[in-house]
């Protein structure tokens, strides 16, 4: 049995300690919000927090999480259901298209703002470059991160002739 703390709750799972956190969360704990994308830490779809830091759960064995706190996309809203400011900004900027990568994007963004509440564009690039979005919503991701950080935006005008 491996003892875990997931989204503030104590959980025990009976799995091979080498099993990646991704599959433990998805299959054993039945929290499918964290996604499988590549299996080799190249796309970021599986990003969760381990003690507040973003990790690629597809390539991190569950043994590495013993005695530490895992936070998944299911665990970042308040207990009363109020969405995290990053989630709210994501809706406001209409970020997701297919949505599959967005759990990972949001987990990377929340970790960034936890560490650096006022990131520059270069810092956003550095923190988010590990997360692939095939729908290419990168500009909206940047907009949403800045909005969540309270950074003044220069919006791109949209015109209808």
């Amino acid at each position, binding site marked *: 049995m491996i003892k875990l703390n997931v989204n503030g709750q104590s959980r025990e799972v009976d799995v091979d300690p080498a099993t990646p956190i991704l599959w433990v969360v998805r299959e054993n704990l039945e929290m499918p919000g964290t996604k499988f994308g590549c299996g080799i830490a190249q796309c970021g779809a599986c990003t969760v927090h381990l003690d507040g830091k973003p990790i690629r759960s597809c390539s991190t064995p569950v043994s590495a999480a013993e005695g530490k706190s895992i936070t998944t996309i299911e665990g970042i809203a308040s207990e009363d259901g109020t969405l995290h400011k990053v989630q709210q900004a994501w809706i406001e900027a209409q970020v997701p298209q297919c*949505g599959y990568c967005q759990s990972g994007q949001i987990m990377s963004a929340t970790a960034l703002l936890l560490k650096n509440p006022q990131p520059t564009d270069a810092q956003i690039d550095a923190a988010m470059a590990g997360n692939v979005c095939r*729908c290419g919503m990168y500009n909206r991701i940047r907009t949403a991160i800045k909005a969540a950080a309270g950074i003044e935006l220069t919006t791109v005008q949209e015109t209808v002739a």
Partner: protein
Amino acid sequence: MSKNNTATDKPGKTGKWTRRAFIGAGVVAGSALVVGVAVRQGNPIDRLSPLLAKGENERLLNAWVKVDADNIVTAVIPHVEMGQGVYTALAQMLADEMDADWNKVRILEAPADMQYVSDSIARDFLAPDLDVPAIFEPTVTGGILELAQAMGLQFTGGSYSVRATGQRAMRTAGAAAREMLVAAAASEWQVPAGEITTANSMILHAGSGKSEPFSKFALAAAEQSLPAKPTLKSPENYTIMGQPKARHDIPAKVDGSAVFGIDAQVPGMKYAAVRAAPVVGATIESMDASAAKTMPGVLQILNMGDFVAVVADGYWQAQQALNSIDAKYSKSEGDSLDQDALFARYATHLDEAGDDGGDMETETGDVAKGFASAAIKVEAEYKVPFLAHATMEPMNCTAWVRDGKCDVWSGHQAPVNARQAAADAAGLPFEDVTYHNAYLGGGFGRRSESDNITMATRIAKATGYPVKMIWSREEDTAQDHYRPSATSRFRGGLDKDGKAVSWDNIHTHLFDPKDAPTVPYYNIASHKIRKVDVPTQLRFGPWRSVDHSQHGFFIESFVDEMADAAGKDGYTFRRELLAGSPRHLKVLDTAAKMSGWGSALPEKHGRGIAFVPSFGSIVAQVAEVDMSGAKPKVKKVYVAADPGFVINPDGFTAQMESAIAYGLTAALYGEITLKDGKVQQSNFHDYPMLRINEMPEVEVALINGDHKHLGGGGEPGLPPIAPAVTNAIFAATGKRIRELPLSKHSFA
């Protein structure tokens, strides 16, 4: 594009259409009164009602809308959501015509049911009393044909949803529902229908001061006959169409609750990892699974002939065990093929076709004469590679075959095809298969294929218990249905004033859309476009914008080469070619103006322009590229787009951004290569994706050029981006790019 058309009552393409459908009937199903439009004998409403109207007192007004007791209007959307915003855009079209309260509109994806593959629904709404010859009148012909293509397969792709289903069906359904509600109120209130107005899901009569919600008359509305041609709104009366409404599917996509195909949960479910023979057409001759058998959690190891499957308690266990299996494969025709050999094969076929061979696609004027007498002659050859789709959600499917029934869960662009594929694989009739569609973690054409459905159903049939099959990223990359590699050759002639007078093109392959290689919008006196069919070894599949993805690059690169030969800049040259087409010119001019075309740029920066009408929409893009580094840096893309009328401006803009990212990824990096018949790429480290630090700024201008003829949104933003970028590289460096991707070229 899709193969299995399973509609059973399709009228023939010619001849008299025997109407088997009838319209308008209310039926009581269980305790809930469900009313709708019956379109076939054997009224399907009682069969559909449990699928669509599960609650008490829900009233299905017609096949695309229901109204419940709380006055909630539910739009039934016969298309799948893969991020393109179709749920919201189509609901906007229905709700606007119905005068529904947008805040009380809900969305339901139509079940994978024959009801929604029937183009007779469309015929009934559009022209119920006409048989086929009369239907083919100019006002409705195009619409019905479009709708038949999209609805006939319940297919989501080809940028069809808004321009066909939305324009022809959702709006009509909304307007019809509204007229039926008004007629019911008029009858009850004993006032002329013309005095009744509707707004925000309310029915109002100013003279008597009466007002009631839609729900009050939903039942009585069902007794009204369906209007044959309900009156549609003019754009000045739109209140919901044309508005940037927030997408309905987004909230579930920020908290992890959105259910994708890969998230299917079935009690007792096991997991399968699979590996197909690496060369198309090969089979497994033998395999050594001795290590896999002893690995924890492994339940079954299956040699399925064309692939190996390991079934285990968990996916990771299954994949680990699969990785330990050594398989030997049969010899196949493609075993010796590599990428260079394939391009050599294309060249041989093109050489053989010469100046006059191949299959003629279009021919106007005398190209030979035009070219012979041209003052300036331009010739060029372009190449593009195979491309994988690389949807973020790897291919997967969950299936359960037992007791003569089959249930299948996945995310598919053509749910009815998926259901049919499962039926075929399970050896069961279509009626005994239930297909459960989920959100698609990216489609881009990949999820119009059913190979994953077939494989999972075969595994489930072999095991007897529910199995979730997940492809590794490596499998997803190596077993795709690819955008084909292709070669295209051009010869163009210019007169002494630098005006284009002849256009001669021959290219490999032609799939879809058939107009992709053609340039009817460019005013060139003579043109001739031909193709040669060459075996491509790998499986073809539609890839976002399909043939336009390569022909956009071919055509717009060559136009730029002609412009350069004429001593003109790309914008001016295209303006001349578009003279006489004001709608096209406006799009081109808008993009150029936005970009500050002609103004000074920093050193080693360049602007490139490209113009591609596709899927009914006209798009021009100007890319600004910085060539001061070791590789091109696309800084900004200016987009002007005219899809006729933009239903959801924010959603359409998002599609332009998305198409640019998808097309730019391919232009910069996208390349699937073959060696010994096998795909060499496996994952994102060797099939790289555009990332946030490489994403250009995107500025979009939308133009409503013709509200009666809508164009698509998902694909038209893609074809111009590659040539806009390569034309910008030429402007900055003088280096002409004739082969993609850009990562093949050195810019140091």
